[in-house]
């Protein structure tokens, strides 16, 4: 077990109210395993990833829960140890490279920084020649043509696909054990998306990394992962092996999500889901999907369902299976 999250609660505080976003999330990632998290926008996917690195915004608080990474509880670690993990062990690919890259520094300056800090953690102060070698090597790894030109460029001078490759390169420098990918291809065209996904897939295998891929694109998660967690409004609704989950979904939310996805081989999509993600200021007290669920029962309104093991590798959180 590389990463295990239990009963994680995350709130965002503002002057007037508290947004209760994550509501007791669980998650586990084995060594070398590729895990997917699916859910609609606003369901707390990014918040979950940020909690793992403890990089929540300042108003984010974790009132309860445990994040065990490699035997240590991340939430109890001191700054020094956290820095070590962020620089050397867990890397993250952010959704929007234009927002994640600094617009006033060249790629060279930004890459050198990351490489330098990582090497200093290892107790080595690199020369500028070493930095250059490392930077060119990592850009070659992500198949960026003409690394010298890329190094001299500012982010706005690169295409969307190239920026995303730079982001992946940066994440890989610090990801020696675990790679987090937050919607890594949302803003890209489908042909470029395909190239980026194949690249991530190849690098993950080469470097024997564990990954967490967060996405609302079901097809991508189906193709890229071994196990899937379904997140809705801050609650894990279902967990199963990828094939099992997509072929035998148990939770009504998962079922509706899958039937809503347009297919290439047939015409007709499911009816979708009415309504919207609940207001986190005052979320439903029972199952958070209850207000939109077609099978809602009395107990769903007030009682949060527990984890129900439906078979060996399949857990669902729904009163239908009590």
């Amino acid at each position, binding site marked *: 077990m590389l990463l295990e999250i239990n009963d994680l609660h995350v709130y965002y505080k503002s002057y007037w109210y508290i947004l209760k976003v994550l509501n007791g999330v669980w998650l586990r990632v084995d060594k070398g395993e590729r895990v997917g998290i699916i859910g609609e926008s606003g369901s707390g996917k990014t918040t979950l990833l940020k909690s793992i690195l403890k990089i929540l915004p300042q108003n984010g608080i974790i009132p309860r829960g445990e994040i065990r990474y490699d035997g240590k509880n991340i939430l109890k670690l001191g700054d020094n140890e956290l820095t070590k993990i962020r620089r050397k062990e867990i890397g993250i690919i952010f959704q929007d490279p234009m927002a994640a890259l600094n617009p006033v520094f060249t790629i060279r300056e930004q890459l050198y920084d990351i490489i330098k800090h990582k090497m200093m953690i290892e107790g080595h102060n690199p020369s500028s020649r070493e930095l250059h070698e490392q930077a060119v090597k990592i850009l070659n790894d992500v198949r960026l043509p003409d690394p010298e030109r890329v190094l001299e460029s500012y982010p706005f001078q690169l295409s969307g696909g190239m920026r995303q490759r730079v982001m992946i390169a940066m994440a890989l420098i610090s990801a020696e054990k675990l790679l987090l990918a937050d919607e890594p291809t949302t803003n890209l*065209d489908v*042909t470029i998306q395909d190239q980026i996904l194949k690249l991530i897939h190849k690098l993950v295998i080469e470097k024997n990394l564990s990954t967490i891929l967060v996405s609302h694109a079901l097809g991508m998660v189906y*193709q890229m992962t071994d196990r899937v967690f379904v997140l809705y409004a801050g609650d894990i609704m279902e967990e199963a092996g990828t094939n099992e989950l997509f072929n035998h979904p148990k939770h009504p939310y998962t079922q509706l*999500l899958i039937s*809503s*996805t347009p297919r290439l*081989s047939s015409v*007709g999509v499911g009816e979708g*889901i009415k309504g919207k993600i609940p207001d986190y200021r005052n979320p439903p007290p029972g199952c958070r999907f209850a207000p939109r669920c077609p099978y809602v029962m009395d107990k769903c309104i007030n009682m949060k369902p527990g984890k129900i093991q439906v078979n060996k590798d399949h857990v669902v959180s729904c009163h239908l299976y009590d």
Partner: protein
Amino acid sequence: MNNDTILSVSDLRKYFTTAEGVVRAVDGVSFNVKHGETLALVGESGSGKTTTGHVIMGFYPPDGGKIIYKGAYELSIPMKKRPLELKRDIQIVFQDPGTSLNPKRLVKDIISLPLLVHRIVDKSRVYEKVAELLEYVGLSEEYMFRYPHELGGGEKQLVAIARALAPNPSFIILDESTSALDVSSQARVLNTLVKIQNELKLTYLLITHDLGVVRNISQRVMIMYLGKIYEEAPTEDFFKSPMHPYTQMLLSSIPTLSEEDEKIKPRGIESVGEIPSAVKPPSGCRFHTRCPFTKQICMEKDPPDIVVNNNHIVRCWLYA
């Protein structure tokens, strides 16, 4: 022009002058839209698909070519000079309902504006009609008194659709109308679009990059790349036998959800390279820089229209 053609576009061109040079966004595009069909115009960002739609809407005049609507109207005149009747008849639903709905107006005011401008109903009956339109797209009357920010993404888009329907148009341009939505709300919007099309005999020009959506609601497909159309076919035929290497690359890049979908994807072609700049598009066939089958002639000459069977047209030297 056939009787069943509602819109006929021939050799349409639209160029933009930028600091880097002239961008040939749409560079010689011709097609016909038939009454009551959904024609999908598919392409990646920078292909010129949205520009094509916006020129038809009259947001800017074309730099060449002809657009004939209902056999009578010439659409190359700018929006301001179009007769009111023509403006009423062609409507558009934009990509992002978060920005296309006025955040300071209630839903009832958003939908009643076109009703009043085009004098669709008597002033005293306006809100009755608004409620009717809302119900028609699957939203209850209560939505009249909400602001756009109180609605979910799918619901906002349904309001935008109700607004487009308000003046009784016969032609609607759907400009990436579902791409900003989650699949669960996208499904609802798609089903609503199909329902109202069948009942009101509407014609759609569906501008999108999502071939899954195309498969589900369109009858014909056109593939656009760097300002030109490279393949045109009925939807069934298109997914059964995609011909242009670019089309094949697009299809093979889609992450699918099942074995059946996987079988649709063409084999033996892999996505390489990126879409080149439209300021200096490649000579000859514009796809030749990324095509695995490039021959000498592809770099030199534009490929001709090759009619494969009566409705399937491909522009590629491989089939010449």
